[in-house]
């Protein structure tokens, strides 16, 4: 079974559309994350949730709204998609977000292309 799964794997859409990416982890972890990897492979954290509570929000436009219905799921909804949103989005999870920063396990990524 896949530890951290994301759907869809590929997403191609037009500018201005609204889309969602789903993430699920079956590791029993408390904390989940969304990262964005741009075309130059640079990875940057976007959000982090601990037990469904937002703990990190890294100056991401309001068009991006994470939703955590339970601690095993962290979905990312994006409104009014722009060309610059094209990237690979990675979900990750860890046991805790405490001082020892337990290992983060990453999903396979969702490649979003905005036309």
């Amino acid at each position, binding site marked *: 079974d896949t530890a951290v799964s994301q759907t869809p794997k590929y997403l191609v859409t037009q500018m201005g559309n609204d889309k969602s990416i789903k993430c699920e982890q079956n590791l029993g972890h408390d904390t989940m994350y969304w990262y964005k990897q741009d075309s*130059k492979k640079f990875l940057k954290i976007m959000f982090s949730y601990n037990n469904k509570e937002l703990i990190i929000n*890294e100056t991401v436009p309001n068009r991006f709204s994470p939703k955590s219905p339970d601690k095993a799921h962290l979905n990312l909804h994006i409104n009014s998609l722009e060309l610059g949103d094209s990237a690979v989005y990675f979900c990750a999870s860890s046991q805790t977000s405490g*001082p020892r*920063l337990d290992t983060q396990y*990453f999903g*396979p990524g969702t490649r979003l292309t905005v036309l």
Partner: protein
Amino acid sequence: AQSVTQPDIHITVSEGASLELRCNYSYGATPYLFWYVQSPGQGLQLLLKYFSGDTLVQGIKGFEAEFKRSQSSFNLRKPSVHWSDAAEYFCASSPLSHFGNEKLTFGTGTRLTIIP
């Protein structure tokens, strides 16, 4: 603000040769340090991490890294690479912050190519 620098964008190594990937961090105190590997089309997998203690850290797949405070470095090494090691390698750091606010800062990655 903390930052992580990987000076080498792309490295090519012959199969069986030794490997060293460089990573430098910029932070007032000693951060937590990590190396991740990303195979083509895949997510990131943790190779090893350093929190404290022994400065030579052993990881999976035969990798090791050495923390050198004087050089603010955390270089990744492998004595003999295999063709399957071809991938993108990311160094990352996290500060010693209060509970619930840690985050990983990644370097820009080093692409490793293995030639026969």
